[in-house]
């Protein structure tokens, strides 16, 4: 896997975009999933994940092939997500899916701007509830929780992705877990 990716990266370095499309093919699900979990919105997730790939392409010469490519890619993706969350600019997509449609994004949209009344939360489907609770987490806990529990990544890799010491990663996972525990105390 790594050998194949490094081969493709060499071709991309020569300017070959077809080789890069193959890389996107391989990593699109992973990166999109992380973005979606962090942002809670399909359109934003697609936009940010694609932007992350574009930045990876532009900066591919800075990638050290002795390292793991997915770590580097996750770093670009999570940084973009964190920036987007912090800006909190009101991005409304008119064609966003509404209640009853597949994906049911209404909750996550509201979650981006504010809290839901408790009785609404209790009526949620499990999938939406998870997404809603994740989106209520402060963004510094959100990234570690998503990477740890949804992507099932080792703590060391999370530390590499977020470029923070292992101890900080652990502390944030602990705090994130405590925050979720409090949020879920009504379940």
């Amino acid at each position, binding site marked *: 896997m790594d050998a194949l990716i490094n081969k493709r990266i060499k071709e991309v370095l020569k300017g070959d975009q077809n080789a890069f499309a193959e890389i996107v093919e391989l990593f699109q699900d992973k990166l999109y999933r992380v973005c979606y979990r962090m942002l809670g919105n399909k359109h934003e997730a*697609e936009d940010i994940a694609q932007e992350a790939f574009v930045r990876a392409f532009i900066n591919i010469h800075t990638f050290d092939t002795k390292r793991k490519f997915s770590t580097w890619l996750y770093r670009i993706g999570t940084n973009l997500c964190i920036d987007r969350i912090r800006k909190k600019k009101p991005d409304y997509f008119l064609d966003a899916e509404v209640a009853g449609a597949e994906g049911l994004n209404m909750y996550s949209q509201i979650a981006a701007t504010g809290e839901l009344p408790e009785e609404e939360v209790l009526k949620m489907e499990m999938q939406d509830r998870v997404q809603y609770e994740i989106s209520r987490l402060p963004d510094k806990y959100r990234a570690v929780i998503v990477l740890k529990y949804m992507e099932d990544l080792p703590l060391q890799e999370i530390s590499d992705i977020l470029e923070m010491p292992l101890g900080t990663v652990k502390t944030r996972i*602990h705090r994130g877990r405590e925050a979720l525990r409090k949020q879920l105390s009504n379940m």
Partner: protein
Amino acid sequence: MMNMCPDHLVHYMHEYLDGDISQEHELELKAHLSSCMTCQQHMQELSKVAAFVQSVSHITAPSGFVEGVTSRLPKETSRVGMKRWFHNHPMLTAAALFMILMSASLFSNFNDDQQFSFTKQPNIVVEGEKVIVPAGETVNGDITVKNGDIQIDGEVNGNVTIINGSQYMASTANVTGEIEEINEVFDWLWYKMKAGAKDVASFFDSEDEK
């Protein structure tokens, strides 16, 4: 509810959940949990959080995601595009390369050689663009005339080649070698190739002589 138990026990719970706990911490935690209902509940809730977050189904990128990325990439340099085309069409590339080299070397050669020129032999006369071997004279060696005519009244002990010109032979003329007229492009090519082959042959001959 206020938790009156020492803080480090909560820390151990997290270490346990991270799969990052030492044996002594684990023993201490287990001993404490068996005797403290509050901490037991805390531990249960934390385990539930993990299960809860992990319960989400895996989602995949929407269709057309890759195309979306490639359409946002900066434009590819044409150099790479050409390289890829060559890579995908090796035969056409070889053919194209051959044609380019052929036309470049041979046709330009043909066109560059539009000037009147001839093999300089001691006893020939030149009038305008015409080479004359006067009557009674004998030329020892080959004569090649390019872009001009040759009139042979005397004798030539060798070959006569006329490129883009004509030959006039008097009744007194005597050429011991071959007489060759070259006027068309393809004759020219043929001549060039034969000359090349002869050069190669003579090269080997001279090698043999050594």
